[in-house]
C-alpha cells in the first residue's frame, strides 16, 4: 500500500470517527487541538483502524496511556528529558521536534497528529 493510499484510508477513518470535513484532515492537524477529538474518540479511531487495515492495535501502542502521569517524568509542568526519551522509545511514529522546544504537559495532546497515525499504520503494515 502506498503512502497516499494509507493517508486516504486514515483520513476516511478520522472523518468517520470525528465527523469532520475531509479538507480538515491534513497531515499536520492534531486530533485534539484541530479536530476536536475527546478521549473516547481515540478508542473509536483505534477500533476503526483495526477494521480498515486488518491488524490489532495493542492498548497503548498508538496512543499511550498515562503519557505524562508518571511523576518520574514530569517536573514543574514539563516533561523531563528522561520522559521524552521514554516516550520516543514507545512512540516511534510520533514527531517530537516541536514538542521538545517546549515540552509542557498541556502540549502532549498536540503530539497526536494525523501524520503520526499514518506513520503508525505504515510501520505496522511494513512489519506484517
Amino acid at each position, binding site marked *: 500500500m502506498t503512502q497516499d493510499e494509507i493517508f486516504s484510508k486514515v483520513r476516511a477513518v478520522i472523518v*468517520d*470517527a470525528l465527523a469532520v470535513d475531509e479538507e480538515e484532515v491534513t497531515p499536520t492537524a492534531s*486530533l*485534539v487541538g484541530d479536530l476536536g*477529538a475527546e*478521549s*473516547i*474518540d*481515540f*478508542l*473509536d479511531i483505534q*477500533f476503526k483502524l*483495526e*477494521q480498515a487495515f486488518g491488524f490489532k492495535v495493542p*492498548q497503548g501502542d498508538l*496512543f*499511550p*496511556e*498515562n*503519557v*505524562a*502521569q508518571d511523576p518520574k517524568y514530569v517536573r514543574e509542568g514539563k516533561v523531563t528529558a528522561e520522559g521524552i526519551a521514554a516516550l520516543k522509545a514507545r512512540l516511534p511514529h510520533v514527531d517530537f521536534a516541536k514538542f521538545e522546544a517546549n515540552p509542557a*504537559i*498541556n502540549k*502532549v*495532546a498536540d*503530539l*497526536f497528529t494525523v501524520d503520526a497515525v499514518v506513520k503508525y499504520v505504515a510501520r505496522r503494515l511494513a512489519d506484517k
Partner: protein
Amino acid sequence: MVGGEETRGLEGPTVRWMWIDRVVSLERGRRLVAIKNVSLAEEHLHDHFAPDAARALPALPVMPASLILEGLAQSGGLLVGHAEDFRYKVVLAKIGKASIDRDAAPGCTLRYTATIERMDDQGAAVACTVEIMDHARAPSGPGAAAAFEPAGSADLMFSHLDNNRGAGGTVGEDFPAHNFVFGEAFKTLLAASAGTTR
C-alpha cells in the same frame, strides 16, 4: 418468600429508568436482543405529542426517538457489562451515528439488537439496530402474524470507566468503588430473562 426492600426493589443504590422490558436472547460477549412494548400508559406519550388546538392538530402519541436511543444504549450497555460479569462500570461514551426512521406508536413492539464489534479493557464498540412490529398491521389470513420491520440503527461506544485513562495526557477521574451503573433493576431484568442467556 420475598426479600426486604433492599433486595427486591427496582431501585437499588441508583435509580434507573428502564427502557427495556425483556431480554429475549443473550450470547455472552456477542449479541443481545431485547424487546420494549410501547404503552399508552406511559405518561410522556400524552405530551409527545399533545393535540394542538390552535393549529388544529390531533394528538400524536409516539415514543420519542431519544428514548429509543436510550433503549438501544441500555441493550448495548447490558451486553457489554454482562460480558465481564459486571466487574466494570460501563457507560455510554459516544453515539457515532444514529438514525431512527419510523414512529413507534402505542401497542407497537420494538426489538433492539446489540452486537459487540470490538471490545478491550478500555471499552467497546457496539452496533445496534431497532425493529418495529405494529400488531395492527398483520397480514390477513388465518394464523397470520405481524412481522418486525427495520426502524433504525446506531453505532455506540461504551467506556469501561475505571480503565479509561484517556489519551493525550488526560487522566481518568476516581469513581466510587460500587458499581453504580448496574443496579438492582438490571439484575431483575436479567433474572426475568433466565433461560434466554448462554
